[in-house]
């Protein structure tokens, strides 16, 4: 069979924006890919899929699932058909994210210092003090260059009208960027010459920009500061990403047990004695970072690191306490923040969000549960989520009881129909829902976003949940250069 027939058999779900097709026509930006695919047989497509799997496996781009004492290597499912973003779409997204990030950084600075936004009652004060990620330890401590969010992974989705919406802001330790880089490498192998022919912009600058930003944060004014990536260790599911970033930046990958704090300075233990550390790109959560200040049973962190940080002897990236800005309940105030701090209209829209401690909104939500998604404000990875349209009555009732008990823990949003994209699965082209996570890097010189990102795919038919922990996969994400 030819891939051509597969393309003809592809059907878009009703009331959904499909990234490749508009009615029966292939969108302009996908023509190159479709033409290439038309030349292939199903056999060849299968071979490409197999090659992708092998490449991931042999490069160890895997995460380990431990069961019955034995590790099983799994790959993060990858769909061979790229997701394509035109240059005008990208310009819009880029502008919108930069604006949002600027406001979020100002918010963090404000909320940890003067708190003007609370005094002006733009954000209710109880929202902040009820947020477990608001850390008193950060109050009144000026972080270098006033940058709190150095790396952001802001999630976007596309509604049935084709409009982009912000789904959530990930400002703590967003992951997945290694898949943005590796997916591209795989595509180079799967579709020779296709990238240059389609004018796809490169993503390889990411580690260089990140490294440049990290160096610029060094508290010691020396030419060759010690930069490290701090990982929880090989059992962490994102360990592959940590090694990739360390390797691509040429910096040391370090675990908590490799570090020691002496006289408010952080050192790593080397074969030649102790060596002072200047900048830490940590992939360990706030809570586990310093057992003296936060979770006392943490073995992943370093005792005393917080004091070194507060003394300004070490830079920590992202800053500690960012969780207060990407809390799902705070999310609904971001458009107001943009107006308050920047005096601008938000470029990218928020998904409407209902605060469940507001009685009126709660009643509305309860009356329309089957059109709502309920999210726990402090969970991520797709945990603690209820999709109203597919949940059973018992589940809905259980959630209602929980919500009434502690409404601040939950928010509700109308279910958004994510856009779909063709995926090659089981020898067929099938529509699957996708989102987009571009990675924004914020340094003293401004905000930079490499043209690309991670497109996550909900692999189950009809599913709207793209999180990798909930059976999601990914696609290579192409951003095309101008004149499109």
């Amino acid at each position, binding site marked *: 069979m030819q891939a051509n027939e597969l393309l003809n058999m592809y059907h878009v779900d009703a009331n959904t924006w499909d990234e490749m097709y508009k009615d029966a026509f292939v969108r302009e930006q996908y023509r190159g890919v479709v033409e290439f695919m038309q030349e292939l047989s199903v056999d060849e497509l299968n071979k490409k899929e197999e090659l992708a799997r092998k490449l991931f*496996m*042999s*490069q*160890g781009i895997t995460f380990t699932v431990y069961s019955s004492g*034995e590790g099983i*290597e799994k790959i993060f499912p990858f769909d061979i058909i790229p997701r394509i973003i035109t240059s005008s779409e990208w310009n819009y997204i880029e502008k919108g994210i930069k604006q949002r990030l600027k406001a979020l950084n100002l918010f963090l600075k404000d909320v940890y210092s003067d708190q003007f936004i609370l005094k002006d009652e733009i954000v209710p004060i109880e929202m902040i003090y009820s947020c477990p990620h608001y850390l008193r330890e950060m109050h009144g401590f000026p972080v270098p260059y006033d940058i709190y969010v150095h790396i952001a992974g802001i999630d976007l989705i596309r509604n049935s009208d084709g409009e982009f919406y912000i789904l959530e802001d990930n400002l703590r330790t967003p992951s997945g960027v290694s898949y943005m880089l590796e997916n591209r490498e795989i595509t180079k192998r799967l579709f020779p010459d296709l990238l240059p022919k389609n004018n796809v912009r490169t993503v390889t600058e990411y580690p260089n920009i990140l490294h440049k930003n990290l160096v610029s944060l060094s508290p010691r004014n020396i030419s060759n500061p010690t930069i490290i990536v701090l990982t929880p*260790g*090989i059992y962490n599911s994102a*360990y592959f990403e940590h*090694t990739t970033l*360390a*390797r691509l930046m040429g*910096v*040391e*990958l*370090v*675990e908590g*047990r*490799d570090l020691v704090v002496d006289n408010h300075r952080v050192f*790593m*233990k*080397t*074969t*030649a*004695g102790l060596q002072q550390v200047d900048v830490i790109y940590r992939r360990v959560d706030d809570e586990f970072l310093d057992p003296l200040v936060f979770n006392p049973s943490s073995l992943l962190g370093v005792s005393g690191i917080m004091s070194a940080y507060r003394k300004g002897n070490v830079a920590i990236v992202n800053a500690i306490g960012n969780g207060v800005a990407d809390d799902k309940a705070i999310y609904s105030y971001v458009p107001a923040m943009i107006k308050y701090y920047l005096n601008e209209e938000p470029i990218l829209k928020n998904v409407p969000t209902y605060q469940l401690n507001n009685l009126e909104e709660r009643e509305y939500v309860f009356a329309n549960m089957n059109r709502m998604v309920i999210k726990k404000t402090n969970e991520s990875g797709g945990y603690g989520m209820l999709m109203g349209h597919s949940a059973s009555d018992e589940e809905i009732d259980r959630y209602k009881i929980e919500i009434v008990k502690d409404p601040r823990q939950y928010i509700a949003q109308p279910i958004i129909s994510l856009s779909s994209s063709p995926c090659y699965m089981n020898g067929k082209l099938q529509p699957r829902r996708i989102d987009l996570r571009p990675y924004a890097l914020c340094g003293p010189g401004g905000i930079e976003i490499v043209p690309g990102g991670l497109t996550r795919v909900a692999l189950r038919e009809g599913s709207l949940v793209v999180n990798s922990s909930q059976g999601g996969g990914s696609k290579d994400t192409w951003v095309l250069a101008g004149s499109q």
Partner: protein
Amino acid sequence: MLSRVADSLYWMSRYIERTDGILRMLKINYASSQDDLQDFSWKPVLRIFTYLKEGNVDKVANRSRAVLQYMVTDKENSNSVVNIVTHARENARSVQDHITKELWQCLNDYYHTVRDEQLVRLLHREDPVTILDVLIKQGLLYYGTTEITMARGEGYAFLNIGKFLERAVQSADILDVKFSDKNYDFDESNPTYWKYLLLSISGYELYLKTYRSGFDPKNVVEQIVLNEDFPRSILYSINQLHRYFQRLKSEKNIEAYHKVDFMIGKINSKVKYSTVETIMRQGLHRYLQTIKEDLYEVGTALNQHYFAYV
């Protein structure tokens, strides 16, 4: 370099060296088992490379396939190839930013090869030499990739320190067990026995070129302990160990360096200024035993002065 990283590199390298030793040993002993009129015994191999109790050794000692499976694919055997390669790969995984991407991929492929479910079946049914060859080749790829891609820095030094320490211990072990099996009888003149011993450590051809008068156990000892040109000899391994250790010299850790350098230098001289006669006078077993103990002490000292991070 981080102490933890140095430690992992050192062990990664030791594990691969051990795997290589085991696989070669298995291959040649298997060949020997097909070439023996009497019941071939795997006893010496099992005694060198496993922790089996004497009674259990006897149970499988004459069953080649069972031994191969136990030594290659048995996950219960802590020293089986599949387990050691897994350890090597876990160590590599935690130091991926210190080994080249090629080297990591090579070890990762090795890991996926030994864990292939097919392997158990093939080892049971097909020609075992083919399987062992596949695995040995993966090891050779590792050595080649290390040689060609790794920077000649501290990491490379630790890789080689691990490799040659392991090799020296292994050669001492092999020689000791093989002789103990013949009750250290230096009149044992069964040429097949010595031939397979030498073959198993790739020393047969060199032996033929060095000694013209057939097989003499004394010459076997001389080659395996004292021949500086034989890459599996104890002396060669210790020379290399010393050479790579000396690359670690730096002002920062000078006291520890001198301590360990002294220890390695002492063993080096001890072996270098031995002859077959002095070894025989001491007794081969006692001689090899002291060398092994000295080498273990070097391992402990490295641990204390270079790898300690807890």
